[in-house]
């Protein structure tokens, strides 16, 4: 639970609430971008971020994102996080 997962910000969904859609290993998940936004949130679209329990905590480059994802896969944490995201979606229903 202490490890973030890389995701790519694909769309700003609600600039007022600092909400954006991120693509996390093919899974779409709304995340908060307050911690990484400087100026216009729209500038974040296309960027990679380390996402931690639904919050983008640091911007990273694409190579770093790939390396981090591979490390998480080896630890089994990538799958676990994706399951948690799915579980979070189920809890809302």
């Amino acid at each position, binding site marked *: 639970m202490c490890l973030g997962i890389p995701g790519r910000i694909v769309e700003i969904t609600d600039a007022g609430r600092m909400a954006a859609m991120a693509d996390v290993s093919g899974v779409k998940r709304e995340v908060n971008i307050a911690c990484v936004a400087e100026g216009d949130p729209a500038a974040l679209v296309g960027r990679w971020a380390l996402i931690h*329990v639904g*919050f983008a905590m640091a911007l990273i480059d694409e190579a770093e994102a790939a390396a981090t994802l591979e490390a998480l896969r080896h630890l089994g944490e990538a799958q676990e996080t994706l399951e948690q995201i799915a*579980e979070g979606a189920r809890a809302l229903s």
Partner: protein
Amino acid sequence: MRYVEEFRDPGAAKALIARIGEVAEAIGATREQPVRIMEICGGHTHAIFRYGLDRLVHEGIEFIHGPGCPVCVLPMARVDEAVEIAERPGVIFTSFGDAMRVPGTKKSLLQAKAEGADIRTVYSPLDALELARRHPDREVVFFGLGFETTTPSTALTIQQAAREEIGNFTVFCNHITVPQPIKVLLDDPHMLLDGFVGPGHVSMVIGTHPYDFIARDYGKPIVVAGFEPLDLLQSVLMVLEQIRDRRAEVENQYGRVVPEHGNPVSLAAMADVYEPRPSFAWRGLGEIDASGLRIRPGYAGWDAEAKFGIGYGARRAREVAEPEGTRCAAVMTGRIKPTGCGMFGTQCTPETPLGALMVSSEGACAAYWQYGGRRSPEAAE
């Protein structure tokens, strides 16, 4: 070198392992007189076991597993209080999955759920807030726990709830901070530590300066590390080089993610919403001054302790005795390895955890179990 093939860059790993060996020899580290390096973060503990780094590096290096697994240090009394809130009528209790199986004195959240309480696993405190929006007639409580990596997420969520005036959402706050327990371990005369591998994602939030006291006041090196295996090896090498050169500094191996001064938005949100408690109990370590956070009075409307009358201190998270025969405290403080506990792998397994160290993959006992802990004479005290 059993696992080296799995590394993204096996050549680089081999070179680092060789250099670690050279510096360890230069220091005079041996199996009997090892250099003892504590990795603070549970994510690092997991990675060290996953890659067998403890077996790959020079035998004169011993990893001591630190207190950086939030569910492992959560006191049983706080689990009891979480269950107590969750079982109240009208409450939807939400939690990260990790915390569901942590034993309380009577039951875990998972058991309470099986008995009928509305307890839901969520990925993010934002999910809990969304539940509150969708169920205005219910009280939605989020079990806030974790170190500085997760603290900003609940702080920002509480700020959002306050902005939207969502009155049926509260956080049961159990957030804890990394620097204080390190000080306790350094002050413990039984803990002989030579250096630290510092947490990467916590430091992304708080920066590297909160560790200055480790180098300045205690003369120990600390290197903030990423959690890829090469990051960890590199960081161990940097710690050893400091020891060899008789330096004690805070170094940052994970500069690509960790800014020196941390993340300003996160720090501001945390300071706005939380304040330190006078003290907080850690499973295995006892009460530690100023190591836990509580919600400031200005946000009392979003504080489950205030709303449900479960104030820390009012009904103190008293020290509850660990179950008979368990050695969690000794493992937690690095005095024994998990295999030195008589319950390890017999009564205590990840499916039926007796102690919290067996619950999360970041816990030392679960990591030992998952990756084939060795039962060896030196495992005992």
